[in-house]
């Protein structure tokens, strides 16, 4: 579904991502791990068009997308959450999601200004969609709270809900479990599985919580210094000595 071909990104003299090849298969949950500063977030930024690639191609459903505007890429069905949460801080939970639902309505400017029939019908649907999403994501209770006053964990959840409102085919999650305790992480893990099944979307995760990554990812790419270290199923990645040395550390080795 998504293919990175020889993707490279440099910042001035610094090469953040170097010749990375990777394929995300449809309906899979894939993982991206690697030490801090390995270039993981940068890869997400490249996929979503926030950064322009220095070299290589990114192909989504057969179409090269590396030079498209971010909103175009989102329009094609790729959306994401951010490592540093970027909600519409001053809006309520409800409005955050409702705003993101915009793509599911087609009425134009004239129709909205004059409140024509299509506006009313579609707007009703949007609002229903929003309610449904809040329900699924367990946010109904927080409906009227402004986003910035939510606790950290809920903000992350809201970010996912907002991304889902776009009805993505590919969902990129950048450290969704950061700041959650193990119990919450476990819940999140189930939630992600549920999302995959329910929304029929492919998921690509960056995460440092190994429980989560190893627990739900079918295929994992390990990045180190911008280069791909290895790629494979969790069991294999977990035991790889290079990965242990560069990323997991001795503690994990003992445990394994």
């Amino acid at each position, binding site marked *: 579904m998504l293919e990175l071909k020889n993707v490279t990104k440099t910042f001035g003299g610094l090469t953040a991502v170097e010749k990375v090849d990777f394929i995300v298969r449809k309906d899979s949950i894939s993982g991206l791990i690697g030490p801090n500063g390995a270039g993981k977030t940068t890869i997400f930024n490249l996929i979503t068009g*926030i950064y322009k690639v220095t070299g290589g191609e990114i192909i989504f459903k057969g179409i090269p997308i590396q030079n498209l505007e971010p*909103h175009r890429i989102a329009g094609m069905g790729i959306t994401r959450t951010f490592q540093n949460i*970027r909600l519409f801080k001053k*809006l309520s939970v409800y409005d955050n999601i409702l*705003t993101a639902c*915009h*793509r599911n309505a087609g009425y134009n400017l004239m129709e*909205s200004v004059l*409140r024509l029939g299509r506006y009313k019908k579609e*707007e009703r649907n949007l609002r229903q969609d929003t309610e449904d999403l809040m329900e699924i994501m367990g946010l109904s209770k927080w409906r009227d709270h402004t986003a910035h006053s939510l606790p950290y964990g809920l903000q992350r959840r809201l970010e996912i809900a907002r991304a889902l409102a776009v009805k993505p085919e590919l969902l990129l999650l950048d450290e969704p479990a950061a700041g959650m305790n193990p119990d919450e992480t476990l819940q999140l893990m189930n939630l992600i599985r549920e999302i995959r099944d329910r929304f029929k979307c492919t998921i690509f995760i960056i995460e440092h919580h190994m429980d989560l990554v190893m627990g739900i990812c079918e295929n994992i790419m390990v990045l180190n210094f911008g280069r791909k270290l290895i790629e494979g199923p969790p069991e294999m990645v977990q035991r790889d000595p290079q990965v242990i040395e560069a990323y997991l550390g001795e503690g994990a080795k003992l445990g394994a």
Partner: protein
Amino acid sequence: MDWFYIKGILILSGINLMAVLGLSLLTGFTGLFSFGHAGFMAIGAYTAATMGIKLGLPLIPSLLIGGLISGVISLFIGKLTLNLKGDYFCIATLGFGEAIRLILDNVQYFGGARGWPGIPLKIDLWNVAIINVVGILILINLINSRHGRNMIAVREEELAAKTIGIDTFKHKMISLFISAVYAGIAGGMVGYYTGFLQPKMFSMNKSTELTIIVIFGGIGSISGSVLGTLLLTALPEILRAFALWRLVAYGAAVIFIMISRPEGLMGGKEITLKGFIRLLNIRKRSGKAAEG
């Protein structure tokens, strides 16, 4: 207070309000700060007056054409400048506003800096009120549609807006266009109200005055803009008697509101019928509670 005088203030408020509403969309809802809106007013004013005098069009079509031309020009400006951030955009719009004024100063066809008298007087309280009501309704509808929400998203967090598929540039453009149309219509009304146009009327002071009103009323609130306009247009009139001290008091009032209610008068909230009823209910309930 004499009705004739009050009427004058109301008409002036109405004219200001139209421009403020447009700017409210741009600044309040889309988060773009313009110092050049007087320029759009000027374009609308001179176009509308031309339509009326040279082509003999009636008021409303003249105003609409004035607004439209102003909007079309805003598209060119927007194309060039909307990618700029914060103060850079400000400066670009400031430059635009001053440039428009300078052009008008030099165009002798419209009387240059000496002004253009003899524009027919067609504005009265009624047509100002109707134009404003329509303007407000359109704006409310817009804000409560996906387009309006997208603009707010651009204001709140542009990057996130992009990643949920909002064409931020396009929405900034729409917002600028509409606000320029509103400003253009307001400008047209200035001409038809005073019967006289002069580039001086559309100086940077006018632009900053509009911005002050928008922020004063509260960002992201239409009722705030309405309230702000009424108050800030009436305030100098109320203070008129203070002569020399009038603008000192005005400046102090602006600072006072900003520091005591930093989110402006309304601050993102709207006066709605529902809210009003809720307020009444709370009163009733607390009244009952007090009884009980």
